[in-house]
């Protein structure tokens, strides 16, 4: 027991002594914040597009569109009457980057709903949305007026609806909006994915270091291989919890200063963060699945480290394990659309994807507590089974040198008593 404790302490102390740990601990929240703010900044701030509206209409329609677009924060728009060479010269302007693009409107917009935008970049969904909305509004109004409807009625009819969405969970209506749930789910999924991956690989390199330096021989002459593995996983796990604690504190500080920090970027705090409410239950679910996922993947990564004899070999051998994790992460986006779908439920029960899938579903929408218990039970059973197999591979692998074993040899390692 005292020896396991010594292994735990060594892993912990050596890791938090490294510069990397502190870089991650201190810059992690900044990094995660940027990850969320950057798209907003890019879409909003970088999105001021200078465009021209080529007006081929016989009514005031084109002028109205140009005027409305110019009033949006996304565009500076100038109306140009359509003419022989206008398109060619505007194309040249866009090519020369003096103009971001131009919109061509004709009477066909009102008749058949057709308009055309040509620009340097056509993949900006935000800008495209604004264009479509603005044109749609003006065209609808024109159509109604053409049909003889009083313009004041038209104006009143166009008053927008703001839909407020709230998550219903545990019989009560939470204050969370859909955006907050979404960002919380996304955030949790992202942190779970990166943390399990980073700390899993930490365990792997630790195993590999002891193997390649041959210290492991001295160690296993004093401590059972499984105890060594256990101490290692616990030590690295403790580091990760410590890391989360630091992140928790610094995220709080960062949040308190958000207005000052991001005010300069022309965004108000409310625009930057749709701050989700993190309940104790959510934190508990997050921690439970992080630990479960970490133990499961750490065992697999340890086995990978034990069967490799160099960094390069390990990088190759870790691919299958990494893919398991990547698949769970990528399917998060599908799950966010419909957290109750059969696909999402299945993923949250499979132990290899549950550590990411279940917390994401929990944050995105309500789910029966019984499902959590079932998925945790399966996860714990899987940790037991995977650790048993990984421990056996580890025990044989750490003393082996030479080429990496194939599947049949691995099977034999597992079978040897």
């Amino acid at each position, binding site marked *: 027991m*005292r*020896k396991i404790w*010594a292994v735990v302490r*060594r892993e912990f*102390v*050596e890791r938090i002594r*490294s510069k990397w740990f502190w870089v991650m601990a201190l810059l992690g929240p900044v990094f995660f914040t940027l990850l969320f703010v950057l798209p907003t900044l890019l879409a909003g701030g970088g999105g001021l597009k200078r465009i021209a509206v080529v007006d081929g209409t016989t009514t005031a329609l084109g002028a109205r569109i140009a005027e409305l677009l110019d009033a949006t924060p996304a565009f500076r728009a100038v109306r140009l009457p359509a003419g022989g060479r206008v398109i060619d010269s505007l194309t040249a302007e866009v090519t020369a980057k003096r103009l971001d693009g131009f919109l061509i409107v004709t009477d066909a917009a009102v008749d058949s709903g057709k308009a055309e935008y040509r620009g340097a970049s056509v993949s900006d969904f935000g800008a495209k949305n604004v264009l479509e909305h603005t044109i749609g509004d003006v065209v609808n109004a024109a159509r109604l007026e053409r049909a003889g409807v009083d313009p004041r009625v038209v104006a009143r009819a166009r008053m927008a609806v703001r839909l407020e969405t709230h998550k219903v969970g545990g019989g009560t209506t939470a204050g969370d909006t859909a955006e907050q749930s979404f960002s919380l789910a996304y955030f949790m999924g992202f942190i779970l994915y990166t943390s399990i991956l980073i700390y899993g690989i930490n365990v792997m390199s630790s195993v590999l*270091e*002891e193997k*390649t*330096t*041959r*210290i492991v*021989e*001295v*160690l*296993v*002459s*004093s*401590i*059972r291989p499984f105890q060594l593995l256990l101490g290692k996983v616990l030590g690295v796990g403790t580091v990760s919890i410590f890391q989360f604690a630091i992140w928790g504190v610094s995220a709080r500080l960062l949040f308190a200063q958000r207005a000052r920090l991001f005010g300069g970027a022309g965004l108000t705090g409310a625009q930057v963060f749709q701050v989700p409410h993190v309940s104790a239950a959510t934190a508990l679910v997050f921690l439970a699945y992080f630990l479960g996922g970490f133990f499961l993947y750490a065992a697999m990564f340890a086995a990978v480290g034990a069967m490799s004899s160099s960094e390069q070999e390990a990088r190759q051998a870790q691919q299958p394990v990494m893919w398991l994790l990547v698949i769970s992460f990528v399917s998060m986006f599908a799950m966010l659309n419909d957290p109750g779908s059969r696909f999402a439920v299945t993923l949250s029960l499979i132990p290899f994807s549950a550590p990411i899938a279940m917390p994401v579903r929990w944050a995105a929408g309500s789910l029966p507590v019984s499902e959590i218990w079932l998925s945790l039970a399966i996860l714990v059973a899987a940790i037991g089974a995977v650790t048993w197999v990984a421990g056996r591979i580890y025990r044989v692998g750490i*003393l082996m040198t030479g080429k990496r074993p194939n599947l049949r040899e691995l099977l034999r390692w597992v079978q040897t008593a």
Partner: protein
Amino acid sequence: MTSPTPLLVLDQVTKRFAGHTAVDALSFSVPAGAIYGLLGPNGAGKSTTIRMILDILAPDAGTVRLFGTPGGGRTHSARIGYLPEERGLYRKMRVLDVIVFLAEMKGVERRAARAKATDWLERLGLADWRLRRIDELSKGMQQKVQFIATVLHEPEFVVLDEPFAGLDPVNLQVLKDTVLALAHRGATILFSTHIMEQAEKLCDALCIIARGRKLVEGALGDIKRRRGGQHLIIGFDGSAGGAADILADRRVVATVDNYGHYAELELVPGADPQQILQRLVASGARLSRFELQAPSLNKIFIDLVGPDAARPGAGAGAEAAVGTGATAHA
């Protein structure tokens, strides 16, 4: 060194790896207090044997008994020090921390380990380096750190796998002195090597193995006596005269190892060394040395292991073990 119970007994220990038998029904015993050599050519199974003694590998058959009790090396790890053949330390750790950690693995309490480690670093001239990282140390210094880690917990039984390989002369001396000091305090030393000169100087008793099997075991003196007697060393001073013919005379000389200025002969049983001396002088050879001697360990080793030691897959080679029983140590 009068202890009647051997400290270590191997009984019919066997280890097979995929495709070959690394250690084949090997039995030997190490008397308490002895400096014991486990000798053999490369690939003879020395390291595998040592790993089984230390519980790093489990034997497929046979038993290992340590300190007269059942339970392998791991059970007794606090009483055993081990220096593996391939050296290595945590490269990013500080010197003092590495030593303390390895001592903790041997069950030494943390604070005591720190004090002892500091003492040892002082003694081996590494005091100023104790807070440096291992990868800042030269190879020789790293070796010293590893000796310290091997002996810090004052083990009763020290196992050294190829301890002299790759050491610079200074560290070689440090290690020898340390080993001898430990032995003097009553520790038992088991070391493996394929370099016979070192073994001959250090060993009280030894076991020679090849291809996983025992060839000979016993006290060094006994083995020499059993295999010696008719061993002659001749040194020439300038002219060898007609010596070559005499050395080639198969009626008196069984084998010869002729270096030109120096030759080692094995005489045919019953041949008279004095007669050879007379014939050499008569042939005009000028002698600087004429010595009747027990054979060197190197000679015994080569005779036993034979040229086919280098030939993998050959039969059991050489003759069966001489003096199988654990020869009591004088």
